[in-house]
């Protein structure tokens, strides 16, 4: 054996020789660096962003243009709502069963397509650009939304019962199974729904502007509806997990599956319920996302990415973590798109990576993550 590799790890060795004061200095330097990563962008957005010159931004700093700053904040928060709806399903399934459902993105897209086809069946195909909101009543949106959610809930149940139930604990194998299903689903969706991007039409009831009564901003109601749905779902999930018997069993199952099972509780039933709810949230997310941003091949990959980022930064299996993660992702993506210098806005995707990187560097299990 090469003896040099058996030496104590460099980090440990270095620390052993450091005085307490030096250690403190190192720690302060680390936190300063980390603070810089957060503080600099905040200063930039609030005071520094110019409107002219080489680094001109679209809006300029928040002090210069408070109205667009507020709009960006609200955009970020409403986008976070949708991220939360999708990611909470992902984290619910993971938290209880340690199943990473890689088909979550495909479920999202399929839920959206089910609702889209049903809406077109109810209302008609519309023009080449699809339907407009004036042609769509509230029922013509709500019924497809419920149908899309229900279909995906059933699909998740079938997948869990057929493929995942018998190999519990083999988490890599389960992830690979869901990947296989997502490959098949994505290819079949391409075959049946084509490669053209399509939108589910919002109902006319939602598709209008409302006065926010802040700096006279007229804001799209649809985004506020998304936020309301997300908050509603968050509250329902919270009440369900904290205040009902099923929720109690689920929380106990997260902590100690074997003990819950030994107490005579049907843990398989609980697993099935959690999988149905988690998948349903992917389907509902797909309907909302399909109305908000459209459906196309490849969209499944983006939404799988958003779910992963939210749970990685929030901590896997934590509902509160998903909310915080969604908020961070929503604000980061909206602010980087709005406040990067106009010539560089296409770099905004980098900030999603930076967000993941910074959180992983500080907390490998995410902000609210706990060891299994």
């Amino acid at each position, binding site marked *: *054996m*090469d003896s040099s*590799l*058996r*030496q*104590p*790890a*460099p*980090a*440990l060795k270095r620390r052993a020789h450091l005085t307490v004061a030096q250690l403190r200095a190192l720690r302060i330097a680390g936190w300063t660096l980390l603070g810089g990563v957060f503080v600099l962008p905040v200063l930039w957005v609030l005071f520094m962003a110019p409107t002219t010159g080489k680094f001109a931004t679209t809006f300029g700093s928040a002090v210069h243009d408070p109205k667009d700053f507020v709009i960006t904040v609200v955009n970020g928060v409403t986008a976070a709502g949708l991220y939360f709806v999708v990611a909470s399903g992902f984290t619910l399934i993971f938290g209880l069963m*340690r199943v*990473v459902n*890689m088909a979550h993105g495909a479920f999202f897209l399929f839920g959206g397509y089910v609702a889209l086809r049903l809406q077109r069946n109810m209302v008609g195909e519309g023009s080449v650009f699809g339907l407009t909101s004036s042609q769509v009543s509230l029922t013509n949106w709500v019924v497809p939304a419920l149908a899309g959610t229900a279909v995906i809930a059933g699909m998740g149940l079938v997948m869990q019962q057929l*493929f995942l139930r018998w190999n519990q*604990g*083999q*988490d*890599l*194998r389960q*992830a*690979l*199974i869901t*990947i*296989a*299903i*997502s*490959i*098949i689903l*994505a*290819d*079949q969706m391409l*075959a049946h729904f084509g490669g053209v991007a399509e939108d589910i039409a919002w109902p006319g009831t939602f598709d209008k502007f409302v006065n926010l009564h802040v700096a006279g901003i007229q804001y799209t109601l649809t985004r506020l509806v998304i936020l309301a749905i997300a908050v509603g779902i968050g509250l329902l999930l919270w009440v369900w997990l904290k205040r009902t018997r099923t929720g109690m069993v689920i929380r106990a199952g997260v902590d100690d599956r074997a003990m819950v099972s030994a107490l005579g509780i049907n843990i398989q039933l609980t697993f099935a319920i959690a999988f149905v709810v988690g998948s349903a949230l992917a389907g509902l997310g797909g309907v909302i996302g399909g109305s908000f941003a459209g459906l196309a091949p*490849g969209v*499944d*990959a*983006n939404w*799988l*990415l958003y779910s*992963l*980022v939210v*749970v*990685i930064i929030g901590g*896997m299996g934590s509902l509160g973590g998903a909310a915080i993660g969604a908020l961070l992702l929503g604000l980061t993506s909206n602010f980087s798109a709005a406040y990067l210098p106009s010539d560089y806005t*296409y*770099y*905004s*995707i*980098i900030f*999603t*990576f930076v967000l*993941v*990187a910074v959180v*992983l*560097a500080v907390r*490998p*299990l995410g902000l609210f993550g706990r*060891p*299994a």
Partner: protein
Amino acid sequence: VRIAVTPDRIVGVVALVFAAVAPAILSAYWVGALLTQMMFLGIVAASLIFLSAYGGMVSLAQVAIYGIAGFVLGNATTTGNTKGMNLGWNPWLGVVVGIAIAVAVGLLFGALASRSVGIYFLMITLTYSVIANLFFGQVTSVSGFGGISGIPTPGIVGSPDAHPNRLYYISFVTALLIYAALRYIVRTPFGLTLQGLRDDPIRMASLGYNVVLHRTIAFGFSALVAAIGGVLFVWWNAHIDPASIDLTATIDVLVIAVIGGLYRLEGAWLGALFFVIINNYSQRIGFIGPRFHTLIGAIFLVIVLVSPGGLIGLWERAVDLFSGRRRDPLDRTPIELGQAEPSV
């Protein structure tokens, strides 16, 4: 030194001889399109199998790294693309810079993900992969959706269309060298430490090994292998765009590695050969037609459900059956193992 004759070695020698004389017996299409593709896809899959078999890390970032090498090479060596940097450098300089940047990114990725293992590692590397795809799709100064076309090869390689055998033999020799290097590395103290970390990271950490550093270096090394695969891909294809590294491409390499078995390096090329042949010939089957991914997804599903050791696992079972050897029931493939520790 006597070398024992085992079924594995017989098959290996036959495969090598066949690969060496393939241009003499197979059509130019088979060599230029299928076997060359098998070689570089096998290299990328081998970088993944190396990580999973010896480091316990199933990475989905290999295709992103392969793409980074390819995009850097494309930007460095081309001129006259509407998007991209059009630097027009010497093709060899482009190769060196491409591989260097890909390895640097690989080390960064590795350093960030190395404190997680198992399913967490899979998720984190998947985010890298999708972000890399979106990055090259959005940032028009390096690519944009159209990608980079007309990427030149060095003089010795020549045009893959005019001289398919040259690129084939270069890919073949590169694959052999990479296979030999990986086999060597896993026997070095570094490789043994890596396997120790895979089996019991907590014990290794308490013995004084730096877990994160070893994992990061292993990831950087696998990035080197994947980047070489990316260079060969770009030489072969003369074009790279974000779709070359999208989620489908990422999963394709995972499928190749899993079909190969995910625990023996040889499986990478076996899986790649299987994948390339199915991809090429399934289109001729009437009811499948363009639905190649449904077929490969179904095959992948069956393999994961029935034979987690992939094709190599089936082969080993067959050999055991004929030789009457019993395998230890605890000797399980990486796919069947659960991951108890999410992080160290």
